[in-house]
């Protein structure tokens, strides 16, 4: 979900369980969505993307679900591992006044994997 104040929402997950990270996006005209993972001290890394003509896409251990009716995006991580501990961001592609559009990011969710 989105953050409030100066603290990121935190999802604590036991190793081996499935994680679900949620994101609400702002623009009903957005047509492309991306999930990024950011480990401490590093730049965001691409995980998976989905276009608005789809409602589900699967990758390796990850699934993204898109619900355009309620403008909601989720990332599911199967069998969460310690290496999955990171901040996860969703991004939506918003069209502006030029032909390229821009990526707008959510505030992020901190995922902590416990043994």
């Amino acid at each position, binding site marked *: 979900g989105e953050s409030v104040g100066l603290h990121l929402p935190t999802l604590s997950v036991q190793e081996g369980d499935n994680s679900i990270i949620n994101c609400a996006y702002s623009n009903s005209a957005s047509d492309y969505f*991306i999930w990024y993972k950011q480990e401490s001290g590093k730049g965001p*890394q691409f995980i998976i993307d989905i*276009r608005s003509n789809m409602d589900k896409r699967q990758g390796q251990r990850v699934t993204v679900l898109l619900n355009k009716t309620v403008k909601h995006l989720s990332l599911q991580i199967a069998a969460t591992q310690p290496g999955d501990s990171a901040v996860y961001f969703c991004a939506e592609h918003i069209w502006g006044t030029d*032909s390229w559009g821009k990526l707008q990011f959510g505030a992020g969710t901190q995922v902590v994997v416990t043994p």
Partner: protein
Amino acid sequence: IAGITQAPTSQILAAGRRMTLRCTQDMRHNAMYWYRQDLGLGLRLIHYSNTAGTTGKGEVPDGYSVSRANTDDFPLTLASAVPSQTSVYFCASRKGQGTEAFFGQGTRLTVV
């Protein structure tokens, strides 16, 4: 190794000083971006460039300027740094419309 490189990795800067953060990519991506990241506020777009020779303003452009003389380089300049510009700065690039952005490792800037 192809990718996007930022320099410096970190910097402590006196208020009022001028500073240029460097960003270079070797992926021949058309579009490049500068974001700042502050806890709880996510990544906010400062400036962008869709192609060499063009630039545009993002959400938080004040106090920053950019140039895009060629495809590979996209420097960000703080003309006169202020403490509120203390942040982690990320450069990103992408090939075209509807594609993901690739990020550099970031520059941690502290203005004192």
